[in-house]
């Protein structure tokens, strides 16, 4: 095993063939690595080869970051990361080959700032969705910033690139162990990351909050500090509220952005999925004092924080995946059209039991307002009431006994012709972890309409609990003979 000497004169240059990869043009040269286009006959997708900068006397973090990426990238999959293809083995010239994502990085949007609020929210929701996927794969990115986010052509999905500073909670953390100074990108680093904690998934939510603030106001909330002392300022000095910069700044967006930028991770959204949920459902965002703030905290408060930093105390944090799984999104789908109040009650009881075991859960109560397939639905019923609004009121009435804090429960009336499809669509787009719904007892109606719960159970990408009212037990022989009779 050779020492890391003289690799600066890398033979990986245009026209060379390295382990079957034909090396093409230089795409990018950064401080830590350069990127080249490469091709190999048996692989169709466009490829990138990442080659670390390994000059003698260079920042040793460059090679350690590269090693981290060599470990982490092969473990990741899905649309929110570049597909891993190959890595150098014991070859003298280290490299990683990965998918060259067709799309643009968010860095290219900097000239257009500030962007319209809705666009910022849409971008934010995509990035939060990508982060949720990453966190579920045991990884905190720790370097979320515009240049590390690519919006894929076609699907529009956000993909995260560059895992050189990332932390995988099932692999050795070389970056954290070998360097005492925290690594990161100064404008975007979360307070706990500055203090050396690399294990909190919510650090990525802070960085995304910085990006959202920047993209919606055109100004970075903490500037671009140089030096350790300037970097630590964000531990006690809060940013200028966005509404002070733009008078028409929406309350919901300020609420979301300032929640991301909370110094204490426990005050932020518990998961990226919950942040994505808020960004996708602005009207449902629970507003707090944050939303209306027009000024920074007074100096007295800042000085108090500066010299009595509660936060600086290291608190033990759960593993990344544990953080995600203790704060699931639970959807309660209730059929209010059916006047089966015992089933409604049973559904609520089951929901309450589930929520008791996961206090971090976020609840979305769903009801489908059926539209007729052919006739154009009137929005008003016979008595002239708005049907949608009436349903919403009923839904909230149903959910009230769950007595959840307002920021933990939201209510949604979906208008659709096919209830199962509407519920499934909601589950997919909001990354719901668990659906709780009732099963119709009336078999005649079920035969007529098909079982909504059956279809949701079959097709949902998550856990589904179907609540059924207990029925009297039949003797096995009777049940069997009934089945026989029903067989045509």
């Amino acid at each position, binding site marked *: *095993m050779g020492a890391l000497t003289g690799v600066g004169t890398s033979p990986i240059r245009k026209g060379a063939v390295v382990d079957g990869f034909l090396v093409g043009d230089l795409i990018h040269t950064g401080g830590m690595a350069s990127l080249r286009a490469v091709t190999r006959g048996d692989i169709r997708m466009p490829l990138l080869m990442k080659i670390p900068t390994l000059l003698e006397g260079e920042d040793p973090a460059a090679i350690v970051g590269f090693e981290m990426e060599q470990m982490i990238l092969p473990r990741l999959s899905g649309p929110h990361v570049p597909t891993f293809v190959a890595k150098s083995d014991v070859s003298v010239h280290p490299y990683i080959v990965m998918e060259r994502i067709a799309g643009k990085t968010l860095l290219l949007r900097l000239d257009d700032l500030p962007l319209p609020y809705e666009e910022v929210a849409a971008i934010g929701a995509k990035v939060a969705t990508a982060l949720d996927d990453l966190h579920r794969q045991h990884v905190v990115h720790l370097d979320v910033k515009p240049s590390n986010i690519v919006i894929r052509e076609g699907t529009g999905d956000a993909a995260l690139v560059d895992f050189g500073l990332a932390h995988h909670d099932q692999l*050795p953390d070389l970056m954290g162990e*070998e360097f005492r100074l925290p690594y990161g990108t100064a404008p975007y680093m979360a307070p706990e990351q500055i203090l050396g904690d690399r294990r909190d998934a919510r650090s990525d939510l802070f960085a995304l909050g910085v990006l959202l603030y920047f993209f919606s106001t055109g100004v970075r909330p903490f500037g671009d500090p140089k030096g350790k002392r300037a970097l630590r300022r964000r531990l006690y000095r809060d940013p200028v509220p966005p509404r002070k910069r733009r008078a028409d700044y929406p309350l919901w967006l300020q609420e979301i952005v300032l929640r991301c930028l909370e110094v204490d991770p426990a005050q932020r959204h518990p998961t990226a999925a919950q942040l994505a949920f808020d960004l996708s459902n602005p009207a449902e965002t629970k507003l707090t004092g944050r939303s209306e703030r027009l000024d920074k905290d007074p100096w007295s408060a800042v000085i108090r924080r500066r010299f009595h930093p509660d936060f600086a105390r290291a608190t033990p944090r759960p593993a990344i995946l544990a953080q995600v799984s203790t704060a699931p999104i639970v959807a309660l789908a209730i059929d209010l059209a059916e006047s089966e109040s015992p089933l409604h009650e049973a559904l609520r009881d089951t929901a309450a039991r589930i929520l008791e075991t996961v206090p971090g859960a976020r609840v979305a109560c769903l009801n489908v307002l059926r539209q007729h397939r052919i006739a154009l639905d009137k929005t008003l019923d016979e008595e002239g009431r708005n049907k949608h609004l009436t349903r919403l009121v009923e839904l909230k009435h149903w959910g009230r006994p769950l007595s959840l804090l307002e920021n933990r429960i939201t209510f949604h009336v979906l208008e659709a012709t096919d209830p199962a499809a509407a519920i499934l669509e909601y589950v997919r787009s909001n990354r719901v972890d668990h659906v709780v719904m009732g099963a119709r007892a009336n078999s005649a109606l079920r035969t007529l309409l098909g079982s909504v719960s059956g279809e949701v159970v079959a097709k949902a990408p998550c856990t589904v609990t179907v609540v059924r009212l207990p029925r009297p037990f039949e003797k096995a022989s009777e049940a069997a003979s009934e089945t026989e009779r029903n067989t045509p």
Partner: protein
Amino acid sequence: MRIAFMADLHANREALEACLAHARSQSADRLVFLGDYVNYGADPEWVVETLLEHVEKGGIAIRGNHDEAVGERARTMSSPAEVALEWTRNQLGPAHRAFLAALPIAHEEEGLLCVHADAAAPFRWSYVTDAEDAARSLRATESHLTACGHVHKPALYNVPVVAGRAAKTTAFRPVAGVPVPLLPRRRWLAVVGSVGQPRDGNPAAAYALFDAARGEITTFRVAYDIEAAAGKIRAAGLPAMLADRLAWGL
């Protein structure tokens, strides 16, 4: 090539059987035993017989401190250990003892060093329990991977091979079943855990599997019939704490 590393068997037949079956299911094609086959457990004879079979088939076995102690008289060991050692001596025949006494202190091949304890002084049987101990052991070898036992708690240490920089040794507690890539520009020290007497709070038997082609090592935790193993220890009249600790993994 997939090498299963098994250490600290301690005469626990049930645990060894479970680990051997697991290694077969993982397509391990080589077995390397890292010492301490006897003492504490109730099946020293069966374990040594099994070891003999595997060594005849090309498996590697090196010597541990308990394997050495069984061939000697009156060494200073903790008290229940000494009682059990005396019992073990009476269980083993001359052929078994000769086999244990003849075991090599280390095994070395391309890129791989196998020892029971600290590679810096294998005869001293020092424990490698933290990054500092690991750094000392890693300085003593050029091998890409050092595999050892002795500590009964799985751990994975590494140090970068860098010229001109005081490199820091990194400690890591491996997650069962999750492969860790052994990056090429580092030296790695795997403490593979104990088959027959785990002491990290998890009573499941531990061993490690190294996939040479992928350059990855995985620690596995294997469930086995603890009650049976503990029951035999009690039935043999061995100190009860040797049975109790199996259930706790301490």
